[in-house]
């Protein structure tokens, strides 16, 4: 790679809309990649197709958002781990199907509420948010229906769901840290999120965790570029083709 000087993909001027575009765009990109990892591994064919379709929606959103911050491919494939601004929640490994569904439930509920609010405003993200919220409504519905089905299912599915609900809980506080450039009522979003998640979990006969929603360690710092250990390996896989063959096209 000595022939190609490393491109500085950090935006020259770290304006607020750029910070926000990276935060939202990285959320969508990283979760899209995680969901794509299910291809060839999903429990049934219909779910394989469903997860791939959700991944595709998120990838479309990511492309629009990252293009607002710079060159989409450079941002996706040439940034180092510390330059990514996504939530730690979305980078968590797929785990079992319950784990993936709970991650979907937590994130799509957040995304739905946030995009609804952004769509109602007149900021730079309003057009994309208005479009995305309609897609995310289906993602949330998909996650809620599976949460009810599995939580209120067999003893085994219930146990696995509860395990996932508890394990991912510590990553949910970060979603409501204000993002520079996004005009949102973060406290209101958090209240609405807790209400909706609480209602779905209770209907699914699951227990709402009581533990903290950020960890005593670094959990909750994805927006600042601090990520959990599995993220580096995910990025390595996601970026290696582009980095090994600079400029390659189909």
């Amino acid at each position: 790679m000595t022939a190609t000087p490393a491109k500085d993909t950090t935006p020259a001027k770290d304006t607020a809309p750029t910070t926000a575009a990276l935060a939202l765009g990285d959320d969508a990109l990283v979760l899209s990649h995680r969901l794509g990892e299910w291809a060839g591994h999903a429990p049934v064919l219909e779910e394989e197709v469903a997860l791939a379709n959700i991944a595709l929606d998120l990838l479309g959103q990511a492309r629009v958002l990252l293009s607002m911050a710079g060159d989409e491919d450079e941002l996706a494939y040439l940034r180092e781990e510390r330059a990514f601004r996504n939530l730690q929640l979305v980078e968590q490994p797929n785990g079992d199907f319950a784990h993936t569904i709970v991650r979907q439930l937590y994130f799509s509920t957040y995304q739905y509420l946030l995009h609804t609010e952004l769509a109602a405003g007149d900021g730079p993200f309003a057009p994309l948010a208005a479009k995305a919220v309609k897609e995310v409504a289906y993602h949330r519905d998909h996650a809620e229906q599976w949460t009810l089905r599995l939580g209120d299912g067999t003893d085994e599915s219930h146990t696995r769901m509860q395990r996932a609900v508890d394990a991912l809980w510590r990553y949910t506080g970060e979603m409501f840290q204000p993002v520079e450039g996004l005009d949102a009522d973060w406290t209101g979003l958090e209240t609405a999120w807790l209400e909706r998640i609480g209602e779905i979990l209770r209907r699914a006969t699951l227990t709402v965790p009581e533990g903290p929603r950020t960890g005593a360690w670094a959990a909750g710092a994805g927006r600042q570029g601090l990520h959990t250990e599995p993220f580096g390996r995910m990025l390595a896989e996601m970026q290696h083709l582009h980095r090994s063959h600079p400029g390659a096209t189909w």
Partner: protein
Amino acid sequence: MVTTTPLEAELLELAGSVPDPELPVLTLRELGVVRAVHARGADAVEVELTPTYTGCPAVEAMSLDIERVLREHGVREVTVRRVLAPAWSTDDITDEGRRKLREFGIAPPRVRSASGPVRVELGPTRTHSAPREEDLGPVRCPHCGSAETELLSRFSSTACKALRRCLACREPFDHFKEL
């Protein structure tokens, strides 16, 4: 409001006549994705195209097809611009488009009065037995017309479709989801 010239109207008609790459029974006009054609000088035009879904991979094929058709018509420079607002809705599909979808074996989207998520039914779980109500009336089987159909998967061959099965004729079919 910018007035449309006869040439722009003609080119809009042409761009709209391009078949959808994934559902070739429909034209882009029937799908409601070609928003406008603006003449930019003597032989250059800009076409406004809106995606059905943000990540719809067919948008690139649509753009290329529009460019080709307009170039064949003598337009030297064609720019296809992607517009997101106002967001596309399945209500933008024309009546003719809905009829063609049905004939093609795809249940057309139901017309929505308000935006918001569409509720779909859930079968019985351990502690709940009643399925949830649908807000928009039944999805009818495109083959036999029966209103007795069930959801198999919320996502089907493409993001815009759900997979259902008719309980009367037992045929599975795609349903163009309301968006």
